[in-house]
């Protein structure tokens, strides 16, 4: 099975990944919203606190600022730092009308009469400016009496707890989202693994079925009666049983085909045996009459011998082809010779010009019985296909790696359907020829070989069978029987 790399990730990984991605996206969006709302709320809270603090201060500070009374200003700031503990004022500076420090909560840092600090701390802005680096927020308020600016208040507020809270919320969100995402991914992984495990079982079965071993799934593996998986498994089992029935049918058909070809050859063989019989009886008569003559006797016995040998060969090769209780053995030249012998009656009947080419040296490790049947079927088909007086050529070549057999004929060529039957892609046809081809093609596949059909230089079809050679110890050094 070839699947492109992008789809190679199994569902059990892909779906949890997808879930995790979605969770991360949801987490990021939700966290961003939460943090934004938190920041808003905190800034509002900060602004409220700052306003309360500055409102309180400015109402009590106006008089002492007008009187330029540093002590009272300081006293108010000092008391306020205790009163406004929630505001956490770190540093409060009160400036006089000239913009100089009148008093500050920390007089050592901001002595009376000094200039206010530069930067955000020295700007009397109404909105609280949060400086995240220093963890401080700065705000200010201008003190106005009768429309005249008499001074201003600058305050630095400790924003560290607010920033710390924000940081903690962010970490909490990060950790909890991470945990939820991981959990969801793990859950997804388990769930999907559970869901796809029947598919994996089915996949394994189907792969084995492709190798020709379609086995039904045992009942205990089929979960629920009405689940999708259950239905799927039952459908597969029906398919597997169908395949098994087809195989059984094909095997039966192959047996019938074998017997049928025996029937087709029977008359020819009877002829093969009958022909020499007439000569043999003549030879016996000759022996009766002229038996005392040494030369006649010898030549007649030779004749008898040859005739009987011919009959023995015919019987032996027929037996070799059709005897059922056979043990596997290797293919050899004798099998090829037998083949020529077996189809001789058919060849003679139609006056076919038969040529058997190629010689095998020693044994070829291929199941001889099956290969003989394959070659016999192909040769008989060729003989049947060619017209009276046509030509059939069987050639056989073997080297270390493969055995190649080609059956050419001068006939009209194969019907279109035959190609597909040979390739094993079409179901077995109803007609005999189709069934024969299908059985042959199946036998070739059983031998581990391939079959191709093409145009023959003789004018008809050329069917080529290639069987890769695997050295099988069970086929070596076994007698032809």
């Amino acid at each position, binding site marked *: 099975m070839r699947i492109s790399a992008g789809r190679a990730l199994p569902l059990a990984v892909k779906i949890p990944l997808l879930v995790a991605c979605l969770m991360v996206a949801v987490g990021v969006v939700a966290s961003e919203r939460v943090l934004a709302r938190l920041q808003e709320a905190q800034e509002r809270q900060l602004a409220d606190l700052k306003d309360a603090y500055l409102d309180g201060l400015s109402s009590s500070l106006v008089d002492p600022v007008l009187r330029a009374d540093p*002590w009272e200003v300081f006293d108010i700031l000092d008391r306020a730092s205790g009163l406004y503990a929630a505001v956490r004022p770190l540093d409060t500076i009160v400036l006089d009308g000239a913009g100089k420090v009148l008093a500050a909560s920390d*007089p050592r840092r901001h002595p009376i*009469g000094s200039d206010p600090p530069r930067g955000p701390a020295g700007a009397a802005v109404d909105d609280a400016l949060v400086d995240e680096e220093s963890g401080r927020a700065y705000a200010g308020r201008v003190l106005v009496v009768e429309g005249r600016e008499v001074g201003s208040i600058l305050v630095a507020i400790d924003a560290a707890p607010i920033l710390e809270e924000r940081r903690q919320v962010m970490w909490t969100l990060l950790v909890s989202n991470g945990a939820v995402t991981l959990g969801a991914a793990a859950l997804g992984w388990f769930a999907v693994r559970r869901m796809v495990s029947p598919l994996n079982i089915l996949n394994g079965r189907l792969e084995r079925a492709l190798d020709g071993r379609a086995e039904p799934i045992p009942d205990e593996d089929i979960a629920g009666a009405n689940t999708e998986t259950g239905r799927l498994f039952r459908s597969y089992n029906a398919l597997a049983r169908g395949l098994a029935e087809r195989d059984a049918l094909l095997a039966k058909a192959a047996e019938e085909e074998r017997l049928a070809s025996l029937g087709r050859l029977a008359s020819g063989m009877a002829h093969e045996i009958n022909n020499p019989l007439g000569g043999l009886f003549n030879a016996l008569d000759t022996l009766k009459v002229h038996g005392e003559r040494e030369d006649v006797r010898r030549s007649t016995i030779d004749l008898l011998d040859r005739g009987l040998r011919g009959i023995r060969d015919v019987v032996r090769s027929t037996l070799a082809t059709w005897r059922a209780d056979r043990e596997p053995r290797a293919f050899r030249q004798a099998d090829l010779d037998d083949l020529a012998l077996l189809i001789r009656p058919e060849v003679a009947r139609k006056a076919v010009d038969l040529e058997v080419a190629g010689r095998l040296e020693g044994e070829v490790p291929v199941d001889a019985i099956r290969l003989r049947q394959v070659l016999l079927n192909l040769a008989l088909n060729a003989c049947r296909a060619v017209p009276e007086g046509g030509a059939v050529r069987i050639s056989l070549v073997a080297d270390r790696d493969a055995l190649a057999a080609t059956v050419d004929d001068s006939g009209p060529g194969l019907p279109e359907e035959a190609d597909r039957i040979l390739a094993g892609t079409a179901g077995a046809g109803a007609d005999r020829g189709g069934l024969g081809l299908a059985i042959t093609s199946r036998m070739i596949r059983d031998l581990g070989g391939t079959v191709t059909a093409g145009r023959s230089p003789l004018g008809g079809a050329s069917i080529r069978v290639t069987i890769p050679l695997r050295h099988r110890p069970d086929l070596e050094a076994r007698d032809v029987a």
Partner: protein
Amino acid sequence: MQDHDRLSRRAVVLGLAAAAAPVRPSHAGGPALRFGLTPVFLSSDLELLDRLKAYLGQATGRTVELVTRRTYQEITTLLVSGELDAAWICGYPFVSFRDRLALVAVPVWRGRPLYQSYVICEAGREAAGLVDLRGDVHAFSDPDSNSGFLVTAAELAAMGERPETFFSRTLYTYGHRNIVRAVASGLAASGSVDGYVYEVLREVSPELVAPTRVVRASGWKPFPPVACPLAFEDTPGTTALREALLAMPKDEDGRAVLSMLRLDGFTVEPAGFFDPIAEAADAVRRLG
């Protein structure tokens, strides 16, 4: 303006109180004895005020009303104008209004009716005397305070200097305790403080005093007295008050008040006892 409102409001309240006198719970007949307190001592101590009020009421047989104000000037004004029957004021206002005030009694501290004025600065600072404090932000207690202003100003006057020019800036805290706070916090680099208050604070609030140290202690000065308007000098009320003050060490409540104030008792001194303050005031005035 504000003070005037308050005064007139009080006048109304007093009038009403006088009208309702028969039903008002009091120790004895007669109008309430109005006794003024300046921030000379630890006037914020409510318990002390309660005990003092209880003792005086019991000892004089009169209802006692304690009156406190933020500045010496307010109390002095009330006293001089006769709004108060008596007041514990500073020696400086006493000499300023000597022609209109009379002495009731003078507190005795550590066996004598005398105290000192301290000039203090930050504990770690190297300064040997007043001259080293030139250019400071200096905290005074009150422009009408002897120890918290006049003593230092007189010493500067002796050097031919005035506080406004000798120091870069002066400020008033209207309380000796606040002088210590101002110097301890760094708001002021130095300050003039009542030596008696400073010593008491050293005992009751050591953490407040710790960041400061005494640069120089002045000579012994007459302790802030209890005074009354000249017109009330020999009234029964004043006599009763004087006797109550003098008898304090003999009474349990009186002793409790004295121990809170860290005083030994009260004594009677002649008006001339405060002449050194008058001289100092003259010296300062001459330079100004």
